[in-house]
């Protein structure tokens, strides 16, 4: 009788895994799951209707139930308590000091920048890692990768300069006739091979030396550290091992973000409970980001940094209204801030905000691009996933007839033409970092006939703007034939 077995037929030989040939299990990736952390593109909650499967009649019931409940009691897409931030006039930005709000704003949409970090607010983790470096297995943030890379590059440059100086010295001797030319050739070949390798430098030693000099006892910005966390005796071998481990975890560092850097969530150890680090950094939002969150999405309340004079100790501070924000931000986009709340149509804040709102509503993640000398960087999903594809440059376009009248021409804020070589400069910088330059023209409407002392509709003002984008690429006929 037939027996259901897994026996293989005899004529086919299949290698069965024996214990000796078993592949070692792949090490588990300790990195953060970015897709999970950044699953929401904006700080809003969506409640889609459940899927309807024709083969399953219960799904219809479920769909109907959900639809009716949405009709009767629509679930809110906004958080229960909106996030809060303070408008700082000195820095002309909005500060979010609550760590949970800062984390939420960063994770859902990549808004803002940590004041003491490169982009993501990671100061606490870096401090903890710095203090726990001797314990091994510290978490690595993007800033540490940058530090390692910069150190490597510095050592490489020193090495290259030394080799170059030697080569010049040899050449000089040859010219003076003191050295044989054949010896020089061999030495030159050796030098060029050294340069080509580019990885001769050992940064581990310099890292160890640097941390040796730093005394763990110094109170950095009021950080509270317990005595038992300080380790005084540490061997050089151990530190080298730690640094080697850290380097193998880091992949090739890139220009603006290190998307694959493993920002580890180390398992909470006993040492964590000993360390009590007070977070010294806050999240800083640009004016456009803050206005988008407040007006465009409605999830952020912005409070004045200093309480108003009519502030009674028992009254709750009021957040600014959108109209007030509109006026303040337009005022503070100039330096020094313009004295009147009247808003000019070509204020820098308005032009930047129109472009920001335009690209955000198309689904791009928009981040400031000062690093590359342009206004905005457009990411597909976020800086942790990929590099920015586009670099946006915002230029006002005075296309309405008013701006060509003598009165209009004198009221223009931007009246000088940009130079031809300036465009080449910007384009060349973007080509160096493999981004596409997008010149974004914002059509400026004629001045608003709105009384700024009375409430007005911000949307009606914004609706009058138009945005046009042009991709600029340099093309050479005799070099680009494909």
């Amino acid at each position, binding site marked *: 009788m037939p027996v259901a077995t897994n026996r293989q037929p005899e004529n086919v030989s299949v290698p069965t895994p024996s214990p000796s040939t078993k592949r070692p299990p792949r090490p588990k990736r300790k990195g953060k799951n970015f897709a999970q952390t950044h699953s929401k593109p904006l700080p809003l909650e969506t409640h889609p209707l459940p899927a309807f499967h024709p083969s399953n009649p219960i799904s219809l019931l479920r769909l109907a139930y959900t639809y009716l409940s949405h009709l009767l009691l629509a679930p809110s897409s906004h958080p229960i308590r909106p996030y809060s931030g303070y408008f700082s006039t000195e820095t002309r930005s909005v500060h979010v000091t609550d760590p949970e709000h800062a984390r939420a704003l960063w994770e859902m949409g990549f808004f803002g920048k940590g004041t003491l970090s490169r982009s993501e607010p990671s100061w606490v983790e870096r401090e903890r890692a710095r203090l726990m470096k001797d314990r091994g297995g510290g978490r690595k943030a993007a800033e540490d990768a940058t530090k390692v890379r*910069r150190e490597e*590059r510095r050592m490489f440059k020193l090495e290259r300069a030394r080799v170059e100086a030697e080569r010049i010295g040899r050449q000089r001797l040859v010219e003076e006739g003191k050295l044989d030319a054949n010896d020089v050739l061999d030495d030159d070949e050796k030098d060029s091979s050294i340069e080509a390798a580019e990885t001769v430098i050992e940064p581990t030693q310099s890292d160890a030396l640097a941390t040796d000099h730093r005394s763990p006892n110094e109170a950095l910005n009021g950080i509270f550290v317990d005595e038992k966390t300080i380790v005084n005796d540490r061997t050089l071998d151990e530190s080298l091992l730690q640094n080697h481990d850290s380097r193998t975890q880091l992949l090739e560092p890139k220009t603006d973000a290190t998307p694959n850097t493993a920002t580890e969530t180390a398992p909470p150890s006993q040492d964590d409970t000993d360390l009590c680090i007070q977070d010294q950094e806050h999240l800083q939002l640009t004016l456009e980001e803050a206005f988008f969150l407040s007006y465009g999405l409605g999830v952020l309340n912005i409070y004045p940094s200093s309480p108003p004079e009519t502030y009674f100790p028992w009254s709750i501070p009021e957040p600014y209204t959108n109209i007030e924000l509109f006026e303040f931000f337009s005022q503070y986009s100039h330096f020094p801030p313009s004295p009147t709340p009247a808003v000019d149509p070509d204020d820098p804040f308005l032009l930047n905000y129109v472009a920001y709102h335009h690209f955000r509503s198309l689904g791009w993640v928009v981040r400031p691009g*000062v*690093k*590359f*000398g*342009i*206004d905005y960087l457009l990411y597909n999903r976020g800086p942790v996933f990929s590099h920015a594809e586009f670099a946006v440059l915002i230029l006002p376009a005075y296309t309405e007839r008013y701006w060509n009248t003598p009165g209009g021409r004198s009221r223009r804020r931007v009246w000088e033409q940009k130079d*031809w*070589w*300036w*465009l*080449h*400069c*910007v*384009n*060349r*910088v973007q080509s*160096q970092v493999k981004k596409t330059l997008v010149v974004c023209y914002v059509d400026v409407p004629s001045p608003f006939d709105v009384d700024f002392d009375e409430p007005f509709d911000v949307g009606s003002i914004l609706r009058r703007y138009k945005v046009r984008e042009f991709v600029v690429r340099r093309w050479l006929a*005799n070099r680009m034939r494909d």
Partner: protein
Amino acid sequence: MSLKFDLDLPRWTTPAAMESPRDLGFDLQPDLPVPISQVGGRYLLFDIKIATYLRREHRICGTQTGTLPLAPSQNLFLGVPIEIMPEEAQLLVEKGVGFIFDEARAHDEAMLQSSDKARRADYLASIHKQSKQVEQVRIEEKEQSRKRALRKRAAKLSAAGTSTPSRQDKPVADLLDFDDDGAPSTVVPTESSSTLDETASLQSESTTKGRVSNPTSSNYHVTPATSQSLLPPSPPQTPKSVIRDVPASYPMYKHLHENGFFMTPGLRFGCQYTVYPGDPLRFHSHFLAVGVEWDEPIELMDVVGGGRLGTGVKKGFLLGGASPAGDVRTFSIEWAAM
């Protein structure tokens, strides 16, 4: 065989001119001020010897804009005319090294409007003489090749043992006559016996007189490559303000030039000038220079972008301008941690 030409006539139309480097003008010290042509708002140098002199002595490099006749269908290698920037032209005029003349107007004045008939006749005669000289050289060349062929043939015949006399006659001349010229080639054999062993000096009229049967029948028409012969002998004084399109970065340009730098247009790098410590053929540039006015507000984005650009190509981004007092200050910017 040495050929003597007038100074302003192009020598490089004849292959014999490549004999000695002196003919290429490496050590030329021309009479100052040298002419700089202005054609269509651009400042061009048509004489390669003058361009070489300016590059060597005055650190004015310029860019080649003309097609090479030997390699016409490409634009990697270009030749005369050399275009110089308005700043460079202004600098040369200020130093008294050069003077600007409008090409079209100079031609008009010299040829059409000039009432000085003697000058016109002189000019046309010099062009004609040039053509004749080219023709002479060509004839000499043919003579030389004919002589060589005859010698070879005589050697072959004597080696073969036959004693047939070498016939210097028309069939040989016709065989060697590759040109389509009618009259000159038939003239050659009659004179060949007398000129075979002589070095033909073209200044001696005796050889030329016999050949030139018809002054206008020369088949070589030489177009002069420069307009120097059209200009009046004493050049007019160019006022300093004739160059209209000098940019505002001129004080910085002059300051850097006086400090011994070579400068070329920097559009490729996204700046106004690329600053070299020596000849561009020997060094890479050290700075990418942008001129700004003293009170001009500079966008921070431009500074960041320029610094990033410079550091990316291992050069310094240089901003410079003239203070109201007159002295020029320059600042260079580098990305600190890249």
